[in-house]
């Protein structure tokens, strides 16, 4: 799980071009949107594309997406739940 979260942080930084941010700056449970990392609606679409390209997971329901993209922790848990046991 820790390895997945670290990789996810690196992928988020690269996909969203967060130039002055390092993986260590992103708290696992901090909000990605609003007060946390300060991402916006276009970033949420970029993160959906990231999930599809990097992990082969397509999020069909936007309401589900809101929960998944709350934090790195929630994204990692979602990815793990979709991976074959």
């Amino acid at each position: 799980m820790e390895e997945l979260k670290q990789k996810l942080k690196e992928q988020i930084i690269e996909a969203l071009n967060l130039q002055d941010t390092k993986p260590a700056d992103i708290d696992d449970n901090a909000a990605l949107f609003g007060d946390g990392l300060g991402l916006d609606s276009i970033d949420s679409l970029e993160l959906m594309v990231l999930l599809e390209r990097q992990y082969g997971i397509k999020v069909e329901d936007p309401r589900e997406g809101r929960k998944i993209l709350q934090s790195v922790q929630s994204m990692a848990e979602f990815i793990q739940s979709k991976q074959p046991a």
Partner: protein
Amino acid sequence: MKVKCYIQGMAAISPQQTFEGDITTAPFVQSDSNRLVCIEPDYKPYIPANSLRRMTRVLRMGLATALKCLSGSGVSTPGPIVTGTGKGSLQDTEKFIKEIEQYKETALNPTPFIQSTYNSVNGLIALQQNGTDYNNTFVHRGFSFENALVDSLMLLQEGATHTLTGSFEEMTPEHFYIKSRIGQWREQPVGNTHLFDASLPGTISGEGSAFFVLAAAPTPESKAAVTGIKLLYKPSLERLSAVLQELGADADLIISGANGDSNYSHYYELANQVLAAPTIPFKHLCGEYDTAGSFALWLAASLLHAGNIPADWFPMVKELPADFKKVVIYNHFFGEQHTVMVVERVSS
């Protein structure tokens, strides 16, 4: 139609050091390459970091030029925003098209798609400046900027107090290669220092962004006045000659779009015959691109405002005129879109 407006503010990003606006002290930036590349400023004072991270080059250039132009004009809200671009954001367009192929039309990033649309820069300016007025981008190859200028003149005539009018263009390595296949560029490297040494097929490519705050009425801060404009599509030599005589007979200085390309040099040679005033080129400064006319307008207004021509920028001209009040810009884009603009000093 009344053809007169006043340039209240202007800014340009180009392959020369133009962003700070002081034409008299900036040196002529020489290049050995046939692809002139813009000298970009530090964008952080103009664009918030959270917005900057998403923008590609031409969007940064366009937005920063527009904001610099506004800040120097004393105008806080932009009013109508009217721009022209021949290609828009090529970098975003190329990325989007490549990803369509790479990911088989699935899982496409939204950002390159959104930003590849031609009116992205206008949208960004309006968002950052809270502009809710008229907002339009013209995409008409070599007429793009000039159509934006004509539209601005009509808006001013209809009652707008000022407009923010400009252009933005970028050249990518891939697009440079595509255009080289149809012979637009010189086969041998000439750069901007040897462009006019010989008249041969092809020229050098360029890019740039230029913005102007235009007003219907003059103020003590007016830099110059645009007093005439004519757009001609593939004109006959007779028609071109008549228009040049009509607009440029009493000009003191001609700014010519001559670019060393022997395929279309006969138009510029005609202009030299028709117009008696001294001529200076500008394509060695900015290269050839769809909206190079906006750089020429920035140059004309800068020269009129400064009151002299920096000799360093025009080493190929033996004798530069010491005094000039009326400048005529003649330019064409690969023989198709021909434009004539008249720019005059504003008497104080």
